[in-house]
């Protein structure tokens, strides 16, 4: 199978890996955003907890979680490795004077930097939410009862509500979305170009979709912690020994 490894290790092959994993990660962002938006419902987190439980237990999703992690790992490794290779291609002596801002966009030239910032954010983010919701040893979750399910579920909503009352945490989340927006601004359209999907009829649509996608993702992801910080509506539930009953219309724990 040497032709496969040769293809994937060539410069274009490595870019194809970046493009396919990158566009796959975009689809993950969309799902993540839709579930995050449930946080803003005025139901004390019942919908959010319902979907968090679904994502944590559905076998298809659990399988895709592994694919997603591989996608992240490959995208991060390949991105950093390519950044090093590309730096070496310039040589040890760079330009004394280089006005690349006159021929290209800042975000396009700084994908590795933006990606590294996102990696740092990702580690902080996973440590706070993902590890806690999957492994009881790292804090675990309080239990609540949500409508339509006959068993208690983890109260991930309270973790989010408590986290987004911490100013530096909200600032970190909001700022990380700027890096995400710039990363997607270049990455979305660039992925299509790398896959050879360029056509004078469709490429303008891909560009505009990418711009709307990147700004939309950044703004909507950033606005959730900001709203939860400033609004008194979103409060973590006080710790109790018994699972709390939640409904989609009212929030008993706060009454």
């Amino acid at each position: 199978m040497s032709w496969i490894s040769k293809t994937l290790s060539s410069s274009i092959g490595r870019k194809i890996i970046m493009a396919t994993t990158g566009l796959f990660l975009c689809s993950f962002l969309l799902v993540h955003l839709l579930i995050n938006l449930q946080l803003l419902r005025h139901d004390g987190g019942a919908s959010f907890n319902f979907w968090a439980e679904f994502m944590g237990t559905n076998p298809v999703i659990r399988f895709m979680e592994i694919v997603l992690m591989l996608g992240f790992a490959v995208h991060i490794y390949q991105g950093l490795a390519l950044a090093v290779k590309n730096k070496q291609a310039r040589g040890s002596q760079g330009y004394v004077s280089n006005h690349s801002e006159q021929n290209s966009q800042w975000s396009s030239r700084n994908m590795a930097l933006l990606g590294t910032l996102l990696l740092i954010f990702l580690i902080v983010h996973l440590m706070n939410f993902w590890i806690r919701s999957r492994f009881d040893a790292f804090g675990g979750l309080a239990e609540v009862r949500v409508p339509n399910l006959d068993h208690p579920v983890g109260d991930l909503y309270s973790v989010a509500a408590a986290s987004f009352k911490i100013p530096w945490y909200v600032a970190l989340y909001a700022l990380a979305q700027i890096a995400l927006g710039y990363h997607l601004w270049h990455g979305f359209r660039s992925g299509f170009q790398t896959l050879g999907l360029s056509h004078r009829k469709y490429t303008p649509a891909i560009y505009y979709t990418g711009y709307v996608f990147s700004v939309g993702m950044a703004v909507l992801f950033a606005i959730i912690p900001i709203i939860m910080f400033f609004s008194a509506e979103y409060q973590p539930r006080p710790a109790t020994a018994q699972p709390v009953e939640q409904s989609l219309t009212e929030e008993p724990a706060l009454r």
Partner: protein
Amino acid sequence: MAGSNPNAKPMNLTLKVWRQKNRITDGGIVDYQVKDISPDMSFLEMLDVLNEDLLRKGDEPVAFDHDCREGICGSCNLFINGRAHGPEQGTTTCQLHMRKFSDGDTIVIEPWRATAFPINKDLSVDRSAFDRIIQAGGYVSVNTGGTPDANEIPIPKDVSDRAFEAATCIGCGACVAACKNASAMLFVSAKVSQLALLPQGHVERKTRVENMVAQMDIEGFGACTNIGSCAAECPVGISLENIAILNQEFISAKATSNNLA
């Protein structure tokens, strides 16, 4: 001077020029003053004035590549004030005129910087990596025999136009110089898409793209990150669409060629 502008005032300039003895030694920026430069001169003529001054003083002249001085050969390649071929769009260094600068300006002049383009001396770089990429597949094999009729092979006008646009690449290397990754993708894509568009190129279509990309990687050029600075600095306006065509050609060749190696 015939055709010159009588109102154009001669300029005095400060040049910061990269000087480097040979491939092995380190180089550095050296400052020079040039006086009474006519705005009608080309950039290379201005450098000729500098070199005459240096020769008169008994100094070594600045080495730089040039040949036709008509913007066709792709020999002249200077990184001027942080831009490949200088500040003007769609121009080679030889077609850049001093009227684009002002009296008293400081101009930084550097060679192309890429591991695959070692510096011979001063501003002259070795671009034979491009030749080896072309040798790897940037050609069409033709059998000898009688002269074929013109227009024997019908080619739609828009296809031949697109192939011709790609064929205008002069191989100057500005794409590599401008690219943050020193990637040669625009150069390679221009040749690959030109020959992929035409029926004459179809015989070697798959091996061509496989071999040219392999040679490009061997030479040590970087990978394309679709920044677009190559197309922005290209003196003949080769478009990024060619890189997408190269990617398409590469993917389909790798998926369908009989080459197992």
